[in-house]
């Protein structure tokens, strides 16, 4: 039986939702599933992973692991794989996960499939290809299998289980401690990030002018979601690149995606088409977005959105 280890990334005292999603998925594969939390003073958050299907949670708790640097994490994962016999290591997509997974792949001479959206019990991954127009089955030829899943690929589902928390040995290679974190910069952000949000309100050129992004922001706030933008408006400097969804931006799959004044060019579509419910508000009835929206509203968003925001607020309060 496969032994699966899931890398549990954490921010501000909680395990990232994406990691828990991957853990929940792993728990359905009929394998022996463990999670691993790496950092300093992270013991407190480890047990919570049991609720998402981990039978064991390894904790590597060490002052040298405070900074989110990849190499020390590779050391921890590599020794767990070697000593405990894990044959599969899974990651949820993030900048850190990409660094760690790549380092681990090199260290263990293991194959890494990235950007996967699914994995079956027999060890076949599903990977979108040709700009998400088809899915291809991918596998591994190496003994140890590594995979990074796309953000939002799986929901974090609570199973009510508990995990045994164990200490993972922390023995760092000389070269792993050479890098030092000088500074960590955080983009200022209100509410959830677009990768994590269940609800995304996205604005396009149809908003008319940069100031009108306030409409999207207010609706997002009312819904408890995040704001995203199309390439056209990011190009025009209306909104930061970090919020760009699409072929050359981020790929998201929230439960609800509200598209305001977005025509639905294929470059945008490939970044959000796997959203559960897509609602489009656009005054052009021929806009391509209506071909794949679940609910389309033809009308002036400047009239509709403020009223919608009001209604959402009233319903929620």
């Amino acid at each position, binding site marked *: 039986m496969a032994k699966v280890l899931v890398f549990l990334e954490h921010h501000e005292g909680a395990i990232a939702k994406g990691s828990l999603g991957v853990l929940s998925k792993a728990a359905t594969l009929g394998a022996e599933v463990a999670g691993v939390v790496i950092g300093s003073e992270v013991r407190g958050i480890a047990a919570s992973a049991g609720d998402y299907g981990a039978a064991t949670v390894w904790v590597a708790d060490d002052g040298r692991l405070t900074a989110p640097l990849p190499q020390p994490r590779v050391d921890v994962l590599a020794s767990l794989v070697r000593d405990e016999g894990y044959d599969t290591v899974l990651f949820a997509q993030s900048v850190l996960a990409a660094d760690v997974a790549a380092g681990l792949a090199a260290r263990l001479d293991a194959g890494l499939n990235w950007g996967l959206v699914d994995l079956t019990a027999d060890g076949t991954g599903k990977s979108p290809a040709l700009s998400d127009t088809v899915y291809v089955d991918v596998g591994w030829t190496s003994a140890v299998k590594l995979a990074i899943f796309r953000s939002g690929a799986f929901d974090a589902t609570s199973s009510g289980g508990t995990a045994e928390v164990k200490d993972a040995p922390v023995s760092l290679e000389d070269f792993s401690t050479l890098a030092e974190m000088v500074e960590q910069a955080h983009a200022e952000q209100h509410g959830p990030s677009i990768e994590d949000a269940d609800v995304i309100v996205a604005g396009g050129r149809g908003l008319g002018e940069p100031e009108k992004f306030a409409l999207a922001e207010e609706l997002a706030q009312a819904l408890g979601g995040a704001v995203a933008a199309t*390439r056209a408006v990011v190009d025009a400097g209306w909104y930061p*690149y970090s919020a760009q969804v699409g072929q050359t931006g981020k790929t998201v799959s929230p439960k609800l995606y509200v598209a305001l004044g977005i025509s639905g*060019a294929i*470059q945008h579509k490939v970044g959000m088409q796997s959203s559960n419910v897509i609602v489009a508000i656009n005054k052009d009835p021929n806009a391509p977005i209506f071909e794949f929206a679940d609910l389309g509203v033809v009308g002036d968003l400047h009239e509709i959105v403020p009223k919608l925001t009001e209604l959402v607020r009233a319903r929620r309060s």
Partner: protein
Amino acid sequence: MTVRASDYPPPWSPGDAIQPPSDPVDERIEVGFLIVGAGPAGLAAAIRLGQLAEDHPETAERLGDVPVAVLEKGKAPGSHLLSGAVVNPRGLQRLFAGRKRMDELPFYGAVGAESVLFLTKRKALRIPTPPTMVNDRNYIASLSQLGRFLAEEAESAGATILPETSAEQLLVDGGRVLGVRTGDRGRGRDGEQLGNFEPGSDITARVTILAEGTQGHLTGAALDHFGLRSDNPQVWALGVKEVWKVAKPLDRVIHTMGWPLRPGRRFREFGGSFIYPMGEDMVTVGMVVGLDYTDTELSVHDLLQELKTHPRIRKILEGGERVQWGAKTIPEGGFVALPKRFHAPGLLLSGDGVGLVNVPALKGIHYAIESGRLAAEAAWKTLERGASARTALASYDEALRESFIWRDLREVRNMRQAFGRGFYVGGALAGAMTATKGKFPPGNARTERDAEHKLLSTDRAKSYPVPDGKLTFDKLSSVFASGNRTRDDQPNHIRIQTKVPRELAEMWAHMCPAQVYEVGEADGDGTVQVKLAPSNCVQCGAITAKGGRLTPPEGGSGPEYTLT
């Protein structure tokens, strides 16, 4: 008001692309021979150099660890290659003489039947195939696929191919070309260094062979710097093509003339279409129009969409599906626009970059391959004992002048220009030129810069079909079908004036098949702002012909063609 694109020159000078080396000597990357561009010319040169190295191992040893390096700005060899293509095998036969047969190359077979059609809006009239266009014994290919094949051959012949690497500056010191500087990677929109910033490097070589293809960035700068330009300016055409999966095989190669282009002299709409079978289940269809056209609303992309609505062509595509799209310019100046010399100290120029294209025959790939092969032989001569580099490189010019390229191009030297006098006069003159093998009319007809023609507007765009997403497509979804996923937050690589008369802004917006230009707000003084979406760019080069200047974006950007 009379508007000419040439009155609004781009903020760019050839000096921007020519610099002395900047890296300290011990940090420069030294290679034997450096080739810029993994297309048919550059790869033929790399393959020929590999053959010579195999034949002369002791000489080859003097070339160092990297005897031959090929820089390619695309994601992979073939990513930026696009052509019809019906290939005359002559160049390949000479390159692979005694080593490979034509049936070992990735062709879609030899041309069987062929038709030339004169189109009106509803009818198609078959006309006799003009003698220059006969394709007997030629092969159908995807140039992108052929390029990938040649790249593998070049690598097994010992060349090092460096994809995702743009050649940004030609390194010139003391009047001699020393190599090139590659482009930086990981810069933000305002040129700032991002987290993944990697500076470019100076790569130096014994001889640098530029094989950049149409609108070559360094080739253009080198022609100016070394005073090599012809008295006749180069002119270009823009080709836009699609590859379709089709329900039923097409049994012949088809070329069309006439509709949707207009015959009137003042429109200067010279061009036509091609429809080629690619095996049993694919067809490629493309439209080519000379960039000397005058109408601000002319859009080759939309003309291709219009062409596909013709009953004769719609029938071929019915039940099929578009799988790829792309665009590229073609140098059309021919013989009269060839450079005065094809070499400079340390430098050889080849292929489409110097305009080795036979417009009446619709061919240039075999010239690119032959010129690359000849460039390799001249470069190799610099290694021979007692050779002077100057004499060795000058032998390239002699070899070109004695080659079939020269004979072919000379014969048809005035044909393209004749079509500046309208379709019918041009057609009649072309017939006379063919009959006399180029002796009549004597002399050379001049070319005029594409950007110099006065613009006019005639509501041309009204006839373009509204895209239905099945047979006809808009520009943005077409950019997607080119595989382009260029990083958006990189510096703008297109040099144009951004405050221009409305006519000019509209001409650019219609001209560009990739929707890079948009007409912005009016300034109140008759001019408008031009807005740019540079990451849409498929690097076709039309802007350089029509008043702007394309420079290479970060390596790895642009389309990722596989079937074009």
